[in-house]
Protein backbone atom coordinates (compact mmCIF):
# COMPACT_ATOMS: atom_id res chain seq x y z
CA UNK A 1 0.00 0.00 0.00
CA UNK A 2 1.31 3.44 -0.81
CA UNK A 3 1.23 6.50 1.41
CA UNK A 4 -1.35 8.15 -0.77
CA UNK A 5 -3.95 5.55 0.10
CA UNK A 6 -3.07 5.54 3.80
CA UNK A 7 -3.50 9.29 4.08
CA UNK A 8 -7.15 9.49 3.07
CA UNK A 9 -7.97 6.43 5.14
CA UNK A 10 -6.66 7.85 8.41
CA UNK A 11 -8.62 10.98 7.65
CA UNK A 12 -11.72 8.99 6.92
CA UNK A 13 -11.26 7.20 10.21
CA UNK A 14 -10.90 10.40 12.18
CA UNK A 15 -13.74 12.19 10.52
CA UNK A 16 -16.26 9.40 10.68
CA UNK A 17 -15.44 7.07 13.52
CA UNK A 18 -17.50 8.72 16.23
CA UNK A 19 -20.73 9.25 14.35
CA UNK A 20 -20.70 5.67 13.01
CA UNK A 21 -20.21 4.41 16.53
CA UNK A 22 -23.07 6.57 17.81
CA UNK A 23 -25.28 5.50 14.95
CA UNK A 24 -24.61 1.82 15.72
CA UNK A 25 -25.13 2.37 19.45
CA UNK A 26 -28.65 3.55 18.73
CA UNK A 27 -29.36 0.48 16.65
CA UNK A 28 -27.76 -2.15 18.86
CA UNK A 29 -28.42 -3.02 22.47
CA UNK A 30 -24.76 -3.41 23.35
CA UNK A 31 -22.02 -0.78 23.22
CA UNK A 32 -19.41 -3.50 22.81
CA UNK A 33 -21.16 -4.83 19.73
CA UNK A 34 -21.38 -1.29 18.37
CA UNK A 35 -17.65 -0.78 18.92
CA UNK A 36 -16.88 -4.10 17.21
CA UNK A 37 -19.04 -3.30 14.21
CA UNK A 38 -17.52 0.18 13.95
CA UNK A 39 -14.09 -1.43 13.66
CA UNK A 40 -15.43 -3.92 11.12
CA UNK A 41 -16.84 -1.08 9.06
CA UNK A 42 -13.38 0.46 8.69
CA UNK A 43 -11.79 -2.90 7.98
CA UNK A 44 -14.27 -3.27 5.12
CA UNK A 45 -13.40 0.19 3.87
CA UNK A 46 -9.72 -0.77 3.81
CA UNK A 47 -10.42 -4.04 2.05
CA UNK A 48 -12.52 -2.40 -0.60
CA UNK A 49 -10.17 0.48 -1.43
CA UNK A 50 -12.66 3.24 -0.94
CA UNK A 51 -12.93 5.26 -4.12
CA UNK A 52 -10.99 8.48 -3.64
CA UNK A 53 -13.46 10.68 -5.40
CA UNK A 54 -16.37 9.56 -3.30
CA UNK A 55 -18.83 12.44 -2.92
CA UNK A 56 -21.01 11.27 -0.09
CA UNK A 57 -18.82 9.26 2.32
CA UNK A 58 -21.53 9.20 4.97
CA UNK A 59 -23.96 7.35 2.74
CA UNK A 60 -21.21 4.97 1.70
CA UNK A 61 -20.15 4.23 5.28
CA UNK A 62 -23.71 3.96 6.54
CA UNK A 63 -24.41 1.36 3.88
CA UNK A 64 -21.42 -0.71 4.97
CA UNK A 65 -22.30 -0.43 8.67
CA UNK A 66 -25.92 -1.31 7.94
CA UNK A 67 -24.93 -4.42 5.96
CA UNK A 68 -22.62 -5.52 8.75
CA UNK A 69 -25.42 -5.09 11.27
CA UNK A 70 -27.86 -7.16 9.22
CA UNK A 71 -25.18 -9.81 8.97
CA UNK A 72 -24.63 -9.64 12.72
CA UNK A 73 -28.31 -10.22 13.44
CA UNK A 74 -28.48 -13.06 10.96
CA UNK A 75 -25.58 -14.80 12.66
CA UNK A 76 -27.19 -14.40 16.05
CA UNK A 77 -30.47 -15.82 14.77
CA UNK A 78 -28.58 -18.72 13.26
CA UNK A 79 -26.82 -19.41 16.53
CA UNK A 80 -30.13 -19.39 18.32
CA UNK A 81 -31.78 -21.77 15.85
CA UNK A 82 -28.72 -23.98 16.15
CA UNK A 83 -28.88 -24.12 19.94
CA UNK A 84 -32.56 -25.01 19.79
CA UNK A 85 -31.85 -27.76 17.27
CA UNK A 86 -28.95 -29.16 19.31
CA UNK A 87 -30.88 -29.09 22.57
CA UNK A 88 -33.55 -31.30 21.01
CA UNK A 89 -31.06 -34.04 20.16
CA UNK A 90 -30.96 -37.12 22.36
CA UNK A 91 -28.04 -36.87 24.77
CA UNK A 92 -26.25 -39.84 23.23
CA UNK A 93 -25.74 -38.12 19.87
CA UNK A 94 -25.11 -34.59 21.11
CA UNK A 95 -21.89 -33.47 19.43
CA UNK A 96 -18.88 -32.49 21.53
CA UNK A 97 -18.21 -28.78 22.02
CA UNK A 98 -15.47 -28.81 19.40
CA UNK A 99 -17.68 -30.58 16.89
CA UNK A 100 -20.44 -28.12 17.72
CA UNK A 101 -18.23 -25.17 16.93
CA UNK A 102 -17.05 -26.64 13.63
CA UNK A 103 -20.61 -27.43 12.64
CA UNK A 104 -21.73 -23.93 13.56
CA UNK A 105 -19.02 -22.47 11.33
CA UNK A 106 -20.09 -24.66 8.44
CA UNK A 107 -23.71 -23.66 8.94
CA UNK A 108 -22.76 -19.99 9.02
CA UNK A 109 -20.85 -20.34 5.79
CA UNK A 110 -23.79 -21.96 4.02
CA UNK A 111 -26.29 -19.60 5.61
CA UNK A 112 -24.43 -16.59 4.30
CA UNK A 113 -24.53 -18.02 0.83
CA UNK A 114 -28.23 -18.79 0.94
CA UNK A 115 -29.42 -15.67 2.71
CA UNK A 116 -30.55 -13.60 -0.25
CA UNK A 117 -32.25 -16.46 -2.08
CA UNK A 118 -36.07 -16.53 -2.15
CA UNK A 119 -37.56 -18.95 0.39
CA UNK A 120 -38.80 -21.50 -2.15
CA UNK A 121 -35.41 -21.61 -3.90
CA UNK A 122 -33.68 -22.11 -0.58
CA UNK A 123 -36.13 -24.85 0.42
CA UNK A 124 -35.62 -26.65 -2.90
CA UNK A 125 -31.86 -26.43 -2.47
CA UNK A 126 -31.94 -27.81 1.07
CA UNK A 127 -34.25 -30.70 0.12
CA UNK A 128 -31.91 -31.64 -2.69
CA UNK A 129 -28.56 -31.09 -0.98
CA UNK A 130 -29.27 -32.10 2.60
CA UNK A 131 -31.96 -34.74 2.17
CA UNK A 132 -30.64 -35.98 -1.14
CA UNK A 133 -34.12 -35.89 -2.65
CA UNK A 134 -34.42 -36.34 -6.40
CA UNK A 135 -35.73 -33.46 -8.50
CA UNK A 136 -38.94 -35.25 -9.40
CA UNK A 137 -39.70 -36.01 -5.74
CA UNK A 138 -39.04 -32.40 -4.78
CA UNK A 139 -41.35 -31.30 -7.60
CA UNK A 140 -44.12 -33.56 -6.23
CA UNK A 141 -43.59 -32.40 -2.67
CA UNK A 142 -43.62 -28.69 -3.49
CA UNK A 143 -46.29 -29.06 -6.16
CA UNK A 144 -44.24 -27.47 -8.93
CA UNK A 145 -42.92 -28.85 -12.22
CA UNK A 146 -39.57 -30.60 -12.48
CA UNK A 147 -38.43 -27.82 -14.77
CA UNK A 148 -39.10 -25.31 -12.03
CA UNK A 149 -37.06 -27.40 -9.58
CA UNK A 150 -34.16 -27.43 -12.03
CA UNK A 151 -34.46 -23.69 -12.50
CA UNK A 152 -34.39 -23.15 -8.72
CA UNK A 153 -31.39 -25.45 -8.36
CA UNK A 154 -29.52 -23.64 -11.14
CA UNK A 155 -30.28 -20.34 -9.43
CA UNK A 156 -29.06 -21.59 -6.05
CA UNK A 157 -25.89 -23.16 -7.47
CA UNK A 158 -25.08 -20.05 -9.48
CA UNK A 159 -25.53 -17.96 -6.38
CA UNK A 160 -23.38 -20.21 -4.17
CA UNK A 161 -20.54 -20.50 -6.67
CA UNK A 162 -20.51 -16.78 -7.37
CA UNK A 163 -20.69 -15.96 -3.69
CA UNK A 164 -18.10 -18.54 -2.53
CA UNK A 165 -15.26 -16.52 -1.08
Amino acid at each position, binding site marked *: MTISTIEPFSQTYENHHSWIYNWLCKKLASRDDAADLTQDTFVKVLQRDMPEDIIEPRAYLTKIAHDLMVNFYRRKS*LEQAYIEAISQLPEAITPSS*EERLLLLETLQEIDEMLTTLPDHVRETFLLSQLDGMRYKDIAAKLNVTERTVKRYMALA*FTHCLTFAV
Partner: protein
Amino acid sequence: MSSNSVNIPEHVIKEVVMWLVKVQDDDLTSQEQQTLLAWRNENHLHELAWQRAENLGMTLQKIPPDLGKQVLGRSATMDRREFAKHLGLLLTLVPIGGITYKYAPWQAVLADIKTATGEQRTIQLADGSQLMLNTDSAVDLAFNDTQRLVKLYRGEIYIKTAKDSAQRPFLVQTAQGQLHALGTEFVVRQHADYSYLGVIDSAVDVLPKDDPQQNLIIEKGQQTRFDSTGIEAPSPLDDNANAWIHGVIYADNMPLSEFISYLKRYRTGVITCDESCDDIYVSGSFQINDPEHILHVLEKTRPIEIEWRTRFWAKISKKQH
Protein backbone atom coordinates in the same frame (compact mmCIF):
# COMPACT_ATOMS: atom_id res chain seq x y z
CA MET B 1 -3.40 -16.56 -2.91
CA SER B 2 -6.38 -18.86 -2.86
CA SER B 3 -8.01 -19.52 -6.20
CA ASN B 4 -11.28 -18.97 -4.35
CA SER B 5 -10.48 -15.32 -4.67
CA VAL B 6 -10.16 -15.66 -8.44
CA ASN B 7 -13.13 -14.21 -10.20
CA ILE B 8 -14.71 -16.88 -12.34
CA PRO B 9 -16.49 -15.36 -15.34
CA GLU B 10 -20.26 -15.57 -15.39
CA HIS B 11 -20.41 -17.77 -18.49
CA VAL B 12 -18.12 -20.36 -16.86
CA ILE B 13 -20.33 -20.41 -13.75
CA LYS B 14 -23.32 -20.89 -16.03
CA GLU B 15 -21.70 -23.86 -17.71
CA VAL B 16 -20.59 -25.53 -14.49
CA VAL B 17 -24.07 -25.04 -13.02
CA MET B 18 -25.59 -26.67 -16.08
CA TRP B 19 -23.33 -29.67 -15.47
CA LEU B 20 -24.15 -29.78 -11.76
CA VAL B 21 -27.88 -29.80 -12.35
CA LYS B 22 -27.42 -32.50 -14.96
CA VAL B 23 -25.16 -34.67 -12.78
CA GLN B 24 -27.64 -34.49 -9.92
CA ASP B 25 -30.69 -35.15 -12.05
CA ASP B 26 -29.50 -38.40 -13.67
CA ASP B 27 -26.43 -40.47 -13.93
CA LEU B 28 -24.28 -39.31 -16.81
CA THR B 29 -23.74 -41.58 -19.78
CA SER B 30 -20.10 -42.44 -20.42
CA GLN B 31 -20.27 -40.14 -23.45
CA GLU B 32 -21.41 -37.30 -21.21
CA GLN B 33 -18.72 -38.09 -18.65
CA GLN B 34 -16.12 -37.75 -21.39
CA THR B 35 -17.61 -34.43 -22.47
CA LEU B 36 -17.52 -33.20 -18.88
CA LEU B 37 -13.88 -34.23 -18.45
CA ALA B 38 -12.97 -32.56 -21.73
CA TRP B 39 -14.76 -29.42 -20.60
CA ARG B 40 -12.82 -29.38 -17.32
CA ASN B 41 -9.58 -29.85 -19.20
CA GLU B 42 -10.30 -27.21 -21.78
CA ASN B 43 -9.48 -24.22 -19.59
CA HIS B 44 -8.13 -23.82 -16.07
CA LEU B 45 -11.07 -21.61 -15.11
CA HIS B 46 -13.39 -24.52 -15.96
CA GLU B 47 -11.43 -26.77 -13.64
CA LEU B 48 -11.37 -24.10 -10.93
CA ALA B 49 -15.15 -23.71 -11.17
CA TRP B 50 -15.56 -27.47 -10.96
CA GLN B 51 -13.32 -27.74 -7.89
CA ARG B 52 -15.23 -24.92 -6.25
CA ALA B 53 -18.47 -26.82 -6.88
CA GLU B 54 -16.99 -30.01 -5.42
CA ASN B 55 -15.93 -28.06 -2.38
CA LEU B 56 -19.44 -26.77 -1.90
CA GLY B 57 -20.67 -30.34 -2.06
CA MET B 58 -18.13 -31.44 0.55
CA THR B 59 -19.18 -28.62 2.87
CA LEU B 60 -22.85 -29.50 2.53
CA GLN B 61 -22.13 -33.14 3.29
CA LYS B 62 -20.79 -32.21 6.70
CA ILE B 63 -24.21 -30.99 7.82
CA PRO B 64 -26.57 -33.48 9.46
CA PRO B 65 -29.76 -33.20 7.32
CA ASP B 66 -32.39 -32.70 10.03
CA LEU B 67 -30.38 -30.21 12.00
CA GLY B 68 -29.35 -28.39 8.82
CA LYS B 69 -32.92 -27.99 7.63
CA GLN B 70 -34.08 -26.73 10.99
CA VAL B 71 -31.29 -24.16 11.22
CA LEU B 72 -30.84 -23.10 7.60
CA GLY B 73 -34.53 -23.29 6.82
CA ARG B 74 -35.46 -20.99 9.68
CA SER B 75 -37.51 -17.96 8.86
CA ALA B 76 -35.24 -15.43 7.20
CA THR B 77 -36.60 -12.44 9.02
CA MET B 78 -36.51 -12.31 12.73
CA ASP B 79 -38.11 -10.00 15.15
CA ARG B 80 -35.46 -8.15 17.09
CA ARG B 81 -37.34 -8.20 20.37
CA GLU B 82 -37.71 -11.92 20.00
CA PHE B 83 -33.98 -12.05 19.40
CA ALA B 84 -33.15 -10.01 22.51
CA LYS B 85 -35.22 -12.35 24.67
CA HIS B 86 -33.09 -15.29 23.64
CA LEU B 87 -29.77 -13.60 23.98
CA GLY B 88 -29.35 -14.72 27.58
CA LEU B 89 -29.93 -18.32 26.62
CA LEU B 90 -27.40 -18.01 23.85
CA LEU B 91 -24.70 -16.82 26.19
CA THR B 92 -25.20 -19.59 28.69
CA LEU B 93 -25.34 -22.44 26.22
CA VAL B 94 -22.65 -21.81 23.65
CA PRO B 95 -19.29 -22.78 25.11
CA ILE B 96 -17.35 -21.01 22.38
CA GLY B 97 -15.28 -18.90 24.74
CA GLY B 98 -13.79 -21.93 26.44
CA ILE B 99 -12.48 -23.59 23.34
CA THR B 100 -8.92 -23.05 22.33
CA TYR B 101 -8.85 -22.83 18.61
CA LYS B 102 -5.98 -23.88 16.44
CA TYR B 103 -5.08 -21.01 14.14
CA ALA B 104 -3.86 -22.01 10.75
CA PRO B 105 -2.01 -19.73 8.35
CA TRP B 106 -4.46 -17.70 6.31
CA GLN B 107 -3.66 -19.63 3.14
CA ALA B 108 -4.72 -22.84 4.79
CA VAL B 109 -7.95 -21.26 5.95
CA LEU B 110 -8.79 -20.03 2.47
CA ALA B 111 -7.44 -23.07 0.63
CA ASP B 112 -9.57 -24.76 -2.01
CA ILE B 113 -9.27 -28.28 -0.73
CA LYS B 114 -9.03 -29.19 2.93
CA THR B 115 -9.40 -32.15 5.24
CA ALA B 116 -10.29 -32.13 8.92
CA THR B 117 -8.37 -34.09 11.56
CA GLY B 118 -8.95 -37.78 10.92
CA GLU B 119 -10.32 -37.17 7.43
CA GLN B 120 -8.77 -38.34 4.18
CA ARG B 121 -9.88 -37.34 0.74
CA THR B 122 -9.04 -38.45 -2.80
CA ILE B 123 -9.52 -36.16 -5.77
CA GLN B 124 -9.28 -36.94 -9.43
CA LEU B 125 -7.74 -33.91 -11.14
CA ALA B 126 -8.85 -32.84 -14.59
CA ASP B 127 -5.64 -34.10 -16.21
CA GLY B 128 -6.27 -37.57 -14.78
CA SER B 129 -3.72 -37.24 -11.96
CA GLN B 130 -4.70 -38.47 -8.54
CA LEU B 131 -4.39 -36.28 -5.46
CA MET B 132 -4.98 -37.62 -1.99
CA LEU B 133 -5.04 -35.50 1.17
CA ASN B 134 -4.17 -37.03 4.51
CA THR B 135 -5.57 -35.84 7.83
CA ASP B 136 -5.65 -32.08 8.58
CA SER B 137 -4.27 -30.93 5.23
CA ALA B 138 -4.88 -28.01 2.90
CA VAL B 139 -3.94 -27.40 -0.74
CA ASP B 140 -4.73 -25.04 -3.58
CA LEU B 141 -4.75 -26.05 -7.21
CA ALA B 142 -3.27 -23.68 -9.76
CA PHE B 143 -3.58 -25.34 -13.15
CA ASN B 144 -3.11 -23.17 -16.20
CA ASP B 145 -1.87 -23.46 -19.76
CA THR B 146 1.79 -23.83 -18.81
CA GLN B 147 1.80 -25.81 -15.56
CA ARG B 148 -0.05 -28.09 -13.18
CA LEU B 149 0.77 -26.63 -9.77
CA VAL B 150 -0.39 -27.92 -6.38
CA LYS B 151 0.32 -25.64 -3.41
CA LEU B 152 0.61 -27.52 -0.14
CA TYR B 153 -0.12 -25.31 2.88
CA ARG B 154 -0.61 -27.84 5.63
CA GLY B 155 -0.48 -31.56 6.20
CA GLU B 156 0.34 -34.29 3.72
CA ILE B 157 -0.52 -35.28 0.18
CA TYR B 158 -0.05 -38.24 -2.12
CA ILE B 159 0.22 -37.65 -5.84
CA LYS B 160 0.14 -40.02 -8.76
CA THR B 161 0.63 -38.02 -11.91
CA ALA B 162 -0.96 -38.80 -15.23
CA LYS B 163 0.51 -38.06 -18.64
CA ASP B 164 -0.70 -34.65 -19.70
CA SER B 165 -1.78 -34.21 -23.30
CA ALA B 166 -0.49 -30.62 -23.18
CA GLN B 167 2.81 -31.84 -21.59
CA ARG B 168 2.59 -29.28 -18.79
CA PRO B 169 5.01 -29.96 -15.90
CA PHE B 170 3.50 -31.19 -12.63
CA LEU B 171 4.76 -29.14 -9.67
CA VAL B 172 4.20 -29.16 -5.93
CA GLN B 173 5.01 -26.05 -3.92
CA THR B 174 5.69 -26.16 -0.18
CA ALA B 175 6.83 -23.42 2.19
CA GLN B 176 10.44 -24.49 1.58
CA GLY B 177 10.61 -25.10 -2.14
CA GLN B 178 9.28 -26.68 -5.26
CA LEU B 179 9.08 -30.29 -6.44
CA HIS B 180 9.11 -31.24 -10.11
CA ALA B 181 7.47 -34.58 -10.70
CA LEU B 182 9.19 -36.70 -13.30
CA GLY B 183 6.22 -38.92 -14.27
CA THR B 184 5.68 -40.29 -10.84
CA GLU B 185 4.09 -41.27 -7.55
CA PHE B 186 5.14 -39.60 -4.29
CA VAL B 187 4.13 -38.17 -0.92
CA VAL B 188 4.89 -34.69 0.43
CA ARG B 189 4.44 -33.54 3.99
CA GLN B 190 4.61 -29.97 5.28
CA HIS B 191 6.30 -29.73 8.70
CA ALA B 192 6.69 -26.55 10.73
CA ASP B 193 10.14 -25.73 9.38
CA TYR B 194 10.89 -28.27 6.69
CA SER B 195 9.24 -30.38 3.99
CA TYR B 196 9.36 -34.14 3.65
CA LEU B 197 9.38 -35.98 0.32
CA GLY B 198 9.01 -39.73 -0.15
CA VAL B 199 9.22 -41.11 -3.70
CA ILE B 200 7.28 -44.29 -4.38
CA ASP B 201 7.79 -44.51 -8.13
CA SER B 202 10.05 -42.85 -10.75
CA ALA B 203 11.73 -39.68 -9.48
CA VAL B 204 11.15 -36.14 -8.22
CA ASP B 205 13.44 -33.12 -8.61
CA VAL B 206 13.67 -30.99 -5.43
CA LEU B 207 14.37 -27.24 -5.72
CA PRO B 208 14.87 -25.41 -2.38
CA LYS B 209 13.21 -22.00 -2.44
CA ASP B 210 16.22 -19.80 -1.71
CA ASP B 211 18.73 -21.85 -3.64
CA PRO B 212 17.03 -23.63 -6.55
CA GLN B 213 20.41 -24.27 -8.18
CA GLN B 214 21.11 -26.79 -5.39
CA ASN B 215 18.46 -29.12 -6.81
CA LEU B 216 18.58 -32.85 -6.21
CA ILE B 217 16.73 -35.69 -7.91
CA ILE B 218 15.22 -38.14 -5.43
CA GLU B 219 14.72 -41.61 -6.89
CA LYS B 220 12.13 -44.32 -6.32
CA GLY B 221 12.33 -45.86 -2.83
CA GLN B 222 14.08 -42.84 -1.33
CA GLN B 223 13.02 -40.07 0.99
CA THR B 224 14.48 -36.76 2.09
CA ARG B 225 13.83 -33.61 4.10
CA PHE B 226 14.57 -30.15 2.81
CA ASP B 227 14.33 -26.54 3.92
CA SER B 228 14.54 -23.37 1.84
CA THR B 229 18.32 -23.52 1.60
CA GLY B 230 19.23 -27.19 1.24
CA ILE B 231 18.35 -30.85 0.94
CA GLU B 232 19.34 -33.69 3.27
CA ALA B 233 21.08 -36.73 1.78
CA PRO B 234 18.35 -39.20 0.75
CA SER B 235 17.64 -42.29 2.87
CA PRO B 236 15.54 -45.42 2.21
CA LEU B 237 11.77 -44.81 2.21
CA ASP B 238 10.18 -45.23 5.65
CA ASP B 239 7.60 -48.05 5.95
CA ASN B 240 4.99 -45.55 7.07
CA ALA B 241 5.69 -43.01 4.34
CA ASN B 242 2.83 -44.26 2.21
CA ALA B 243 0.98 -46.63 4.55
CA TRP B 244 -1.60 -43.90 5.19
CA ILE B 245 -2.72 -44.11 1.58
CA HIS B 246 -4.07 -47.55 2.46
CA GLY B 247 -5.54 -46.24 5.70
CA VAL B 248 -3.05 -47.87 8.08
CA ILE B 249 -0.19 -47.12 10.41
CA TYR B 250 2.41 -49.81 10.12
CA ALA B 251 4.66 -50.56 13.09
CA ASP B 252 7.55 -53.00 13.23
CA ASN B 253 8.91 -52.91 16.76
CA MET B 254 8.26 -49.20 16.92
CA PRO B 255 8.75 -47.35 20.22
CA LEU B 256 5.31 -46.60 21.70
CA SER B 257 6.02 -42.86 21.90
CA GLU B 258 6.83 -42.76 18.19
CA PHE B 259 3.69 -44.75 17.41
CA ILE B 260 1.60 -42.31 19.44
CA SER B 261 3.11 -39.37 17.59
CA TYR B 262 1.82 -40.92 14.34
CA LEU B 263 -1.57 -41.63 15.87
CA LYS B 264 -1.99 -38.09 17.21
CA ARG B 265 -2.24 -36.65 13.74
CA TYR B 266 -5.48 -38.56 13.13
CA ARG B 267 -7.19 -37.68 16.36
CA THR B 268 -8.54 -34.46 17.83
CA GLY B 269 -7.33 -33.99 21.38
CA VAL B 270 -4.29 -34.66 23.52
CA ILE B 271 -2.42 -37.93 24.11
CA THR B 272 0.60 -37.89 26.35
CA CYS B 273 2.95 -40.79 26.85
CA ASP B 274 5.19 -40.52 29.91
CA GLU B 275 8.82 -41.70 30.33
CA SER B 276 7.81 -44.98 31.98
CA CYS B 277 6.78 -46.16 28.48
CA ASP B 278 10.29 -45.80 27.04
CA ASP B 279 10.88 -49.55 26.83
CA ILE B 280 7.52 -50.44 25.27
CA TYR B 281 7.38 -51.33 21.60
CA VAL B 282 4.50 -51.85 19.19
CA SER B 283 4.16 -54.11 16.15
CA GLY B 284 1.31 -54.54 13.72
CA SER B 285 -0.76 -52.74 11.15
CA PHE B 286 -3.47 -50.48 12.56
CA GLN B 287 -6.51 -48.96 10.86
CA ILE B 288 -6.25 -45.21 11.28
CA ASN B 289 -9.93 -44.48 10.76
CA ASP B 290 -10.59 -45.36 14.40
CA PRO B 291 -7.83 -44.00 16.69
CA GLU B 292 -9.95 -44.61 19.81
CA HIS B 293 -10.08 -48.31 18.95
CA ILE B 294 -6.32 -48.44 18.46
CA LEU B 295 -5.84 -47.01 21.96
CA HIS B 296 -8.15 -49.66 23.41
CA VAL B 297 -6.29 -52.42 21.57
CA LEU B 298 -2.96 -51.11 22.85
CA GLU B 299 -4.26 -51.02 26.38
CA LYS B 300 -5.29 -54.69 26.13
CA THR B 301 -2.16 -55.98 24.44
CA ARG B 302 0.63 -53.86 25.90
CA PRO B 303 1.58 -53.38 29.58
CA ILE B 304 0.15 -49.87 29.70
CA GLU B 305 -2.59 -47.94 31.43
CA ILE B 306 -4.58 -45.16 29.80
CA GLU B 307 -6.01 -42.54 32.05
CA TRP B 308 -8.84 -40.58 30.43
CA ARG B 309 -8.92 -37.08 31.86
CA THR B 310 -11.62 -35.98 29.42
CA ARG B 311 -12.98 -37.60 26.29
CA PHE B 312 -10.20 -35.89 24.35
CA TRP B 313 -7.35 -36.11 26.80
CA ALA B 314 -5.63 -39.43 27.30
CA LYS B 315 -2.53 -40.00 29.41
CA ILE B 316 -0.54 -43.20 28.85
CA SER B 317 1.82 -44.73 31.41
CA LYS B 318 3.35 -48.13 32.11
CA LYS B 319 1.28 -50.47 34.25
CA GLN B 320 2.61 -50.69 37.82
CA HIS B 321 2.86 -54.12 39.41
